[in-house]
């Protein structure tokens, strides 16, 4: 802005703010000289710290000076010595832990040879800048992405998916600075559509939310993605990311849609819903902050259609949990006494955005088939879930969320839907053939999904052939 600015900083958030300032292209410093206690920002708090430190705010606007006026670092290499490879590898891992460069798990050495091998997975020039990983603003060059993949034992054929995932994440509307820094524990989940998923052994079936020896792609891509969030984005727990819990940090959440498992005529796969052609290779990034399994066995009704309703209501009951995390109409941040509903009007753009996503429902192919047999299409499932997950106004009042409902559309007293329309509910088929469970992934405090088409290198088939030789034939497990 070119205007001197200071912050009313919360104790413990200095590094988070440093990252944010770095991401804006400024030296990694914070123009403040005081951190206010956390308790001061709670309802009915004692505001004495402001009275006692108002001079610090004045100082920050009139006298504060940065230690540096400019700063730039470039990618470098590190040399590690050891009596043999095993010792050098061990020494490297200790160094990486001390420098906060690994994720706490052992990493492989990103040597020139290994990185060059990974880089055979793209036709992009190694120094191509894909974007900045916010909030710190580390530049995600193709090489840096390959370095992350090399560190986790990734393969060249995974690189196109990871690059597309990064391209999706760095789109401004994905709010990566928020995803990476917030106290809300968000994971940028990647859903992959298209033939590439099967080609690189990305799981869409059993255990698709976890690591898999038969399908190692998801764990490698997700772990590399997380390393990029940490090493380029600054998302180190308690320092750069204040996520209270940080679940799924180890491998994030990377999965494919089970496109073959979508019943014929049931509804389009996610990539088509997102505006791409059927059969296109696409990554969709959607941030999620929590997930729960929903059991779909047993029930009161004997008639299949009624039983399906019961199951849909079970999913909807989780979706309609009145948490701030599925309350995306408005601001992400805490309200307070005295705040009116009108104050959130400026934030309504989020729910107006066609990319607005109120959460992701994973449906195994078996249940998708049952739903279709009971007369439900993907569209009518969304409509049912939208209606059934509305939150009764007394519950809204009980949990203190009435100020967040848009005044004009959801008048006081009426049940409030979790998103403006059923289109805001994302449904993906995945999780295997059995129909006994569904999976609900709630959003965090950023709500806009992004998608990116995946670019394959000219040597794609040679890479797949090499993978076949290295990994052997894929077991015939769905």
């Amino acid at each position, binding site marked *: *802005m070119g*205007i*001197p*600015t*200071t*912050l*009313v*900083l*919360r104790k413990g*958030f200095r590094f988070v703010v440093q990252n944010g300032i*770095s991401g804006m*292209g*400024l*030296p990694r410093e914070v123009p403040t000289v005081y951190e206010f206690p*956390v308790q*001061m*920002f*709670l309802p009915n708090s004692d*505001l004495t710290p*402001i009275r006692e430190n*108002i001079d610090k705010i*004045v100082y920050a*606007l*009139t006298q504060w*000076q940065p230690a540096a006026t*400019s*700063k*730039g*670092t470039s*990618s*470098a*290499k*590190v*040399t*590690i*010595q*050891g*009596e043999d490879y095993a010792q*050098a*590898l061990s020494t490297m891992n200790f160094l*990486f832990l001390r420098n906060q*460069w690994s994720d706490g798990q052992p990493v492989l*050495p990103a*040597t020139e040879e290994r990185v060059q091998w990974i880089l055979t997975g793209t036709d992009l020039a190694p120094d191509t800048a894909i974007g900045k990983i916010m909030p*710190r*603003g*580390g*530049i995600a*060059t193709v090489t840096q992405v390959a370095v992350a993949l090399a*560190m986790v034992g990734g393969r060249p054929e995974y690189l196109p998916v990871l690059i597309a995932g990064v391209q999706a994440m760095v789109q401004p509307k994905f709010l990566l600075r928020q995803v990476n820094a917030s106290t809300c524990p968000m994971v940028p989940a990647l859903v992959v559509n298209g033939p590439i998923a099967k080609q690189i052994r990305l799981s869409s079936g059993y255990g698709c939310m976890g690591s898999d020896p038969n399908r190692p792609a998801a764990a490698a891509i997700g772990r590399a993605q997380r390393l990029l969030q940490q*090493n380029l984005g600054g998302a180190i727990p308690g320092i750069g990311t204040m996520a209270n819990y940080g679940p799924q940090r180890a491998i994030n959440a990377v999965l494919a849609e089970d496109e073959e498992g979508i019943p014929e005529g049931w509804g389009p796969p996610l990539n088509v819903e997102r505006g791409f052609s059927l059969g296109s290779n696409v990554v969709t990034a959607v941030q999620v902050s929590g997930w729960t399994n929903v059991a779909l066995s047993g029930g009161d009704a004997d008639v299949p259609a009624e039983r399906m309703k019961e199951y849909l209501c079970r999913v909807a009951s989780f979706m309609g949990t009145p948490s701030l995390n599925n309350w995306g109409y408005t*601001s*992400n*941040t*805490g309200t*307070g*006494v005295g*705040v009116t509903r009108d*104050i959130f009007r400026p*934030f309504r753009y989020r729910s107006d955005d066609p990319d607005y996503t109120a959460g992701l429902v994973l449906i195994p192919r078996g249940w998708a088939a049952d739903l279709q047999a009971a007369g439900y299409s993907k569209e009518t499932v969304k409509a049912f879930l939208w209606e059934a997950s509305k939150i009764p106004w007394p519950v809204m009042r009980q949990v203190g969320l009435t100020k967040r409902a848009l005044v004009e559309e959801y008048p006081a007293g009426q049940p409030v839907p979790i998103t403006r329309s059923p289109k805001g509910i994302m449904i993906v088929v995945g999780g295997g053939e059995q129909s006994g469970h569904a999976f609900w992934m709630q959003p965090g405090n950023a709500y806009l999904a992004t998608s990116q088409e995946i670019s394959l290198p000219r040597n794609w088939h040679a890479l797949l052939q090499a993978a076949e030789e290295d990994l052997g034939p894929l077991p015939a497990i769905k």
Partner: protein
Amino acid sequence: MTLEVYDPTGAVEAPVTFAKRLDTLAGKTIAQVGHSWEAHRTHPLIRELLEGMYPTAKIIPHTEMPDYTDPELLARSAKEQQCDAVILGNAS
């Protein structure tokens, strides 16, 4: 045995410098920004204290400024309102 590996933290650009600080807040226009975490209590108190220290300063309340969630809109608004300084909050 020598292992030469890439530094995984990559490069960061810092082409921008911090804005020059003001000589005084007297006579200046200062905007308050941010609606979160008891902003309706902290910002007014800061405003009251600053107005006491600098009676000629003009403090624009946070309710008259866009939130920091839209940085471009915020920057445009700050310039349109001829702000000399910004106090950003709350509890960042």
